[in-house]
């Protein structure tokens, strides 16, 4: 195509003229758009500024929160602007290309001396300019109001530009998709239906994949982050809403560029479909019969699956699920045939096609149900994998950052050493048979990622039915250097990031802070050394006596400043060097966790799995020192017995930090002030509760 034939001067002139004309004809839609953004953007800005001015007079210190509020209104976190953008994209696409579905208008436009790609562009640009006018006008108004009222510091140029680009790109993405949908359809109504279907397609397919993965496979696992990532790459709405609603992530430029390219490509597809679209399809339900058939069967399959889920949940059981398949499949097929033909009498058209689709679906479903593809049976050998990432629910995730995702935690526990790979695979192999119902909740949950030699990653989850067996195998991994150096952040942090450390021994305030970087680093070094020597066997019998929290700011912990914590670690009684150093720095107070004198009494309880009490007191306990509640719990006030319990008791708060700690069945609540309800919960190491002989 030569530059001469691509666009003549005359066509360019006509392009501009027709675009203006189209915008004039869509004035009502552009006005609606403007009004929508006025109420979603400008009016909230005015309200925010008014509130800000009132608060500023009363509390001059509140400026930060006022700025934050105004920044939210004009920024990407304004949910209403996001929703309005999506709605307007769909509306403007329908309005701009509405004429394609009317024979009179098709004859009018297609008889004009302008090529179809340019006709397409006039409609495309009319909708785009309409949106730009509506949004930018209101944005300018809002920014003007903010600056004129003295709150200009609330905004930065980068933030405003980023927000504009975000809304524009996702408008384009949804707009282009909706236009492509209208090309496939022959009426505005079917165009809107097609738009809705295409927007919901990937999220629905992803959601149903997850549901059926869990239904069909015992070892199904797809990390949430991968689902989220897939959703963000496949669905413009998912990506847009994530970027708008998430306060943690900044706008990802790469994702925005991706969706811009996607929008341009889809715009190109729309233009191609427009040029190929037969003019005589105006008024029919569908313009292209083959793509329509493909879309129809995709919709039928999704509805079949959705029907299955619905009846499985309501009716419970495979029988109802199959009933749901039939309902979802047949009804959706019939409805679509009526829509495609605009004739109710065609409701049972193409029944043969439905039958074939149904047979294929049944075959595929049965194959998955019987695990003919080997999903559940999959277990690689050691020479097939280059690494195995494995995590369990028996973990110390409190040492990790709150921003860390489940996938990050999984990859943090990646084993490359051959002996660890072997141990991980053995652990998976022992869990590959599904747990029987009798095993109860004693087991442990495992999530695995096999990193194959080919680069492929395979995810599975298992349930180890016996906790004891699980721990025996898990201990090989935990006790390894590789696990600790990868898992605990303290091993990855540089000394420069460890500026201060606080010590907390449970119940109440910190017992002390170290604010010299050298001391903080020294503590970290000692703790690392002693952590490397820690084994699961040791951890079964001891609970932490303190927690150390490192901050990357020397003022960490001062005046309520806890935002600079980088990690925290438990300190066990066996970590003698660390405890000695902590005592030397004056941040650790050894000794009894509570004063005997401040304890009014102790509540004790112990239940078995069936809920029956198993607590028996030692012989010779005076009844005067004992109360028994209606629920069977025992309250002791005898100081001597309380003292004996204090010697062995461990704070529940600290014991919970050790997932391997084996606690006694007896639980204790030390009451310090019955009137105020102030008490401290404790546990005891297994077999070390001093007062009872359990049945």
């Amino acid at each position: 195509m030569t530059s001469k034939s691509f666009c003549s001067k005359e066509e360019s002139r006509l392009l501009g003229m027709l675009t203006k004309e189209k915008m004039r004809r869509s004035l009502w839609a552009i006005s609606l758009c403007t009004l929508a953004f006025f109420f979603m953007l400008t009016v909230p800005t005015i309200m925010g500024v008014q509130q800000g001015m009132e608060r500023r007079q009363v509390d001059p210190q509140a400026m930060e929160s006022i700025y934050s509020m105004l920044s939210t209104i004009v920024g990407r976190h304004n949910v209403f602007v996001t929703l309005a953008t999506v709605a307007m994209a769909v509306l403007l696409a329908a309005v701009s290309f509405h004429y394609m579905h009317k024979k009179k208008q098709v004859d009018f436009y297609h008889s004009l001396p302008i090529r179809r790609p340019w006709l397409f562009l006039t409609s495309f640009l009319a909708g785009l300019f309409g949106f730009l006018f509506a949004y930018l006008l209101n944005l300018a108004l809002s920014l003007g109001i903010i600056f004129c009222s003295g709150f200009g510091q609330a905004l930065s140029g980068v933030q405003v530009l980023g927000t504009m680009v975000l809304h524009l790109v996702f408008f384009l993405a949804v707009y282009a998709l909706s236009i492509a949908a209208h090309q496939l359809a022959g009426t505005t109504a079917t165009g809107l239906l097609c738009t809705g279907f295409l927007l919901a397609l990937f999220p629905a397919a992803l959601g149903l994949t997850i549901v059926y993965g869990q239904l069909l496979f015992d070892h199904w696992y797809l990390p949430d982050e991968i689902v989220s990532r897939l959703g963000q790459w496949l669905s413009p709405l998912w990506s847009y809403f994530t970027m708008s609603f998430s306060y943690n992530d900044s706008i990802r430029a790469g994702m925005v560029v991706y969706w811009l390219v996607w929008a341009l490509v889809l715009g190109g597809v729309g233009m191609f479909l427009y040029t190929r679209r037969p003019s005589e399809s105006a008024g029919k339900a569908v313009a292209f019969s083959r793509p329509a058939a493909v879309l129809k069967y995709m919709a039928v399959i999704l509805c079949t699956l959705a029907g299955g889920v619905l009846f499985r949940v309501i009716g419970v059981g495979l029988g109802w699920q199959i009933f749901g398949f039939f309902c979802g499949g047949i009804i959706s097929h019939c409805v679509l045939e009526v829509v495609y033909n605009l004739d109710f009498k065609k409701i049972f058209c193409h029944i043969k096609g439905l039958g074939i689709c149904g047979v294929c679906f049944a075959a595929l479903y049965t194959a998955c149900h019987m695990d003919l593809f080997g999903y559940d049976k999959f277990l690689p050998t050691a020479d097939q994998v280059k690494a195995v990432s494995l995590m369990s629910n028996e973990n110390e995730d409190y040492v990790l950052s709150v921003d860390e995702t489940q996938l990050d935690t999984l990859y943090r526990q990646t084993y490359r050493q051959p002996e660890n790979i072997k141990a991980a695979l053995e652990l998976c192999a022992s869990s590959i048979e599904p747990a029987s119902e009798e095993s109860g909740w004693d087991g442990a949950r495992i999530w695995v990622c096999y990193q194959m030699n080919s680069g492929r990653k395979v995810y599975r989850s298992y349930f180890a039915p016996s906790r004891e067996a699980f721990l025996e195998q898990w201990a090989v991994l935990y006790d390894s250097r590789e696990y600790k150096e990868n898992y605990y952040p303290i091993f990855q942090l540089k000394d420069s990031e460890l500026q201060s450390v606080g010590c907390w021994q449970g119940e109440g305030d910190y017992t002390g802070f170290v604010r010299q970087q050298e001391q903080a680093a020294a503590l970290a070094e000692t703790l690392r050394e002693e952590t490397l020597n820690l084994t699961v066997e040791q951890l079964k019998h001891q609970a932490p006596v303190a927690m150390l929290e490192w901050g990357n700011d020397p003022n960490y912990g001062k005046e309520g400043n806890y935002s600079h914590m980088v990690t925290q670690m438990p300190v066990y009684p066996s970590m003698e060097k660390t405890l000695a150093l902590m005592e030397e720095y004056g941040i650790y107070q050894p000794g009894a966790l509570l004063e005997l004198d401040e304890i009014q009494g102790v509540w004790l309880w112990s239940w078995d799995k069936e809920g029956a009490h198993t607590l028996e007191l030692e012989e010779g306990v005076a009844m005067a020192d004992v109360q028994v509640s209606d629920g069977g719990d025992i309250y002791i006030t005898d100081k001597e017995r309380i003292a004996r319990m204090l010697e062995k008791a461990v704070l529940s708060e600290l014991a919970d930090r050790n997932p391997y700690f084996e606690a006694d069945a007896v639980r204790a609540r030390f009451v310090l002030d019955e009137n105020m309800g102030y008490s401290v919960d404790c546990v005891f190491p297994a077999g070390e509760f001093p007062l009872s002989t359990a049945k």
Partner: protein
Amino acid sequence: MITATDVTKRFGNILAMDAVTAVIREGSVFGLIGSNGAGKSTFLRMTAGILRPDSGSLMADGMEIYENPQVKGRIFYISDEQYFYSNATPRELRDFYASIYPGFDKGRFQTLMKGFDLQMERKINTFSKGMKKQVSVICGICSGADYLLCDETFDGLDPVARQAVKSLLAGEVAERNMTPVIASHNLRELEDICDHVGLLHRGGILFSRDLEDMKLGIHKLQCVFQEPVERGDFAPLEVMSFDKRGSLFTITARSSREELEEKVRSMGPVFYEVLPLSLEEIFISETEVQGYDIKKLLF
């Protein structure tokens, strides 16, 4: 010149045009006749570049029409149900077409609107069907297009307006060699304006002839004989129709006027007179020869 060569068009299972071949010469008024569903509108829509032929070629002055703005700029299409922008006035319509067709004559538009007694500022959607057609024709004529495609345009026009439009079209043909193509199912409507006529039937062209040639080649004569005569007595002339009512005979024959008169004179009539043939009668004769009943074709 517009040439259609083996043009075929399907709408699903319906064959709307079946290998149609036709030539529309410039500077002549081409009448496209056919019953409902014959394919007239389809042919015009393809000629206007709205529909793409499934096969064959449709060209104007040697260039493909479809997706060719250069050619389409010389064609103006008046649909049987013309679309107007909602709330548009004739003035806005004039301005719109003036920007599309560089040769649009705004002054002439104004004059013609006055001539037809149509108001420039009144909204077109308040016009009657006939008035809307008048506006469309005026737009078409003032556009300066070389080809004016009219689909059932005379339908809905009152007799006065119809005559006015016919005069206008004739004037355009004479002045600047415009080529109107008029589709209709009403033969009488086209009789006094068309130079060339094509008959469409079920998507195919039955015939396409110059009207004058048709008229020259066929003549109708009424005569009275004292002695009865038979159809065969007129041999070797090709008698297309032979009607006897008492002693009055009406003969339509494919021959020159002179040949027919000479033959009749040789048979010694009491009286004879050559009668004018209507387009309808010519058609009846032509189609009967081909084995069709004209009434089934057109009514």
